[in-house]
């Protein structure tokens, strides 16, 4: 792994109404794309503001390149922010907005002009140099905000829900462009979003935040395939959660039993022992419904309805105790179950995850 650029060490922050952040620690490596993912109010914006210096932590340290900058004012930090509202200066044209960070740092006029030109080319906005922010569309303002934040050549770029205000299509396009930009420039990004799809598409690592803490920090694959907590499992992707008691161990495979029946899961990522209670997460697209029982599974369910979903069909079923389970099936399945049919739920044991213990406070 590359060397560590930014370290947050045991950050606590309280605005007088309970902790906004409690014990947040994070190492961000050079060139990495780290996303803070969480619902609104989970503390992700506060974390970002502590890195940029717009907020100071109550306790804890912010370390950049091995040097503590906890007490540095924002203007001293080699860190720039793309604000959620873009925060372009409405009384300056595009060119002056982009040049601002260079001008206040005393860069000479010639270098300023060259750098502004380069930045506008980078975000494909060269022909808009003389426009005022009010004359630009949301997507264009977004590009200028990125150009302005990149112009002073920050070591770290912070992006606070930068695509939040854009429509879906533009959002997807900007996701690709941003990722490409980050790769090309090799700049470290800390990115905030509440959109799990965006986080999974763009990030090297994701920190799922909840109630001012990290629920899980890991690569998109780790987070998706092996959610550490119930909250992560439910927040990211669609899945079914089943609790039960380990009946027996068969090599790495654990056979789990509950009131609905019996099922099998690969416990390579979680050391399970017989008699232990555990929770298993199965992603909707990995859940299958079969008309005949499958080896290792005894999980009968009743089909409520089947819905066509483009490339597949979604089979909505109910287990014995009323738990709703959605399974995916191929569209041209000759024996597509009908409402009222009895089916047997199953999955590839290697593709289900045992949730690591119980979630905080849940």
């Amino acid at each position, binding site marked *: 792994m590359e060397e560590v650029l930014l370290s947050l060490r045991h950050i606590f922050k309280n605005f007088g109404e309970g902790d906004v952040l409690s014990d947040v620690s994070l190492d961000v490596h050079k060139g990495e794309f780290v996303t803070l993912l969480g619902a609104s109010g989970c503390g992700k914006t506060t974390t970002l503001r502590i890195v*940029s210096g717009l907020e100071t932590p109550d306790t804890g340290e912010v370390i950049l390149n091995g040097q503590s900058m906890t007490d540095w*004012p924002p203007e001293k930090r080699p*860190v*720039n922010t793309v*604000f959620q509202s873009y925060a372009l200066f409405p009384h300056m044209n595009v060119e002056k907005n982009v040049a601002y960070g260079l001008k206040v740092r005393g860069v000479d006029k010639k270098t300023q002009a060259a750098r502004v030109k380069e930045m506008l080319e980078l975000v494909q906005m060269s022909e808009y140099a003389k426009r005022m922010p009010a004359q630009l569309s949301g997507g264009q303002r977004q590009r200028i905000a990125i150009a302005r934040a990149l112009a002073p050549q920050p070591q770290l770029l912070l992006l606070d829900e930068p695509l939040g205000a854009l429509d879906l299509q533009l959002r997807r396009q900007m996701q690709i462009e941003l990722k490409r930009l980050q790769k090309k420039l090799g700049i470290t990004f800390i990115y905030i979003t509440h959109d799990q799809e965006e986080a999974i598409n763009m990030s090297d690592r994701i920190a799922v935040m909840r109630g001012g803490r990290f629920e899980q920090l890991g690569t998109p694959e780790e987070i998706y395939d092996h959610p550490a907590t119930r909250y992560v499992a439910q927040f990211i992707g669609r899945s079914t959660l089943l609790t039960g008691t380990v009946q027996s161990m068969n090599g790495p495979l654990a056979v789990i039993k509950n009131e609905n029946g019996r099922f099998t899961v690969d416990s390579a990522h979680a050391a399970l022992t017989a008699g232990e209670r555990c929770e298993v997460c199965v992603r909707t697209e990995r859940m299958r419904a079969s008309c005949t029982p499958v080896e290792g599974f005894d999980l009968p369910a009743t089909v409520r309805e089947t819905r066509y979903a483009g490339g597949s069909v979604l089979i909505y079923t109910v287990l014995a105790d009323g738990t709703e389970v959605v399974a995916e099936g191929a569209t041209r399945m000759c024996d597509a179950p009908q409402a009222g049919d009895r089916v047997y739920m199953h999955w590839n044991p290697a593709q289900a995850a045992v949730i690591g213990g119980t979630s905080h406070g849940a």
Partner: protein
Amino acid sequence: MAHKSRMHAGESRRSAVFVLPMALLAVTLVALPLIYVLGTSLVETGQSFSFGAAFTLDNYRRLLRADYLLVFWESLKLAFLTTLLSFVIGYPFAYCMARAGKRWKSLLMMLVIIPFWTSALVRIYGWKILLQANGPINAVLRGLGLIEKNIKFLGSYGSVLLAMVYCMISFMILPCHSSIDKLDVTLVEAARDLGSKPWRAFLDVTLPLTMPGILAGCVLVFVPSVGIFYLADIMGGGLVLVGNLIRDQLLKVRDWNTGSAMSMVLIFITAGIYLLYRRSGGDDLGVF
């Protein structure tokens, strides 16, 4: 389309119902007297204005005397200093008010508004008592050993300026506060984030973006300040302002024609300032 235009006609007919009484009021209370003043200023001394009277500019020509011009100059200078001081004191006040917490904000707002509950005249007499030679301010200064002999505040230019700023500063604070309050704090944060020290961010972002409020405040303070004379009279010191001049022409000399001409010049000056303000993109102050 047809539907739309019918709606439009209905709307304008309805709004005419509301506008008409206001227009009548404006014509009878503002336009007619003004026309009469204008007319009086344009006829020969001693004559009253009537249709068919011979018009002359003599009354205006008579104003081009060095001592009259000096009085106009003094009035403009006092109004300018009042505006400047109101800004220097009022803007920081408005800034603190806009950035203060909710409870402080309403408290400060009360401090600005409460003085309006009593007459300015009464409040200025209050200041006069505070400032007089054997008044409380001198007593306190003497008690602290800062001075030996009482200072004669009253009658000084400073005391007149104090009274003017005191009476006018609210008109600076309120529009400044409203534009600072509306300013998106994120813009200031963006400037800090991009490398500006707090002071630089203020000059680059806060000040230019609150300029509409500052300009509105300047006009609201300057325009009435040019014409006010009773404050200078109460504080003493014999400062002669345009207002004094007009009053004396009308009530002492009883030369209504010259007095009217002076009034018209004053009106033109203030109207000119307002037009300049509007030309520069200033907000409608609900005047024109």
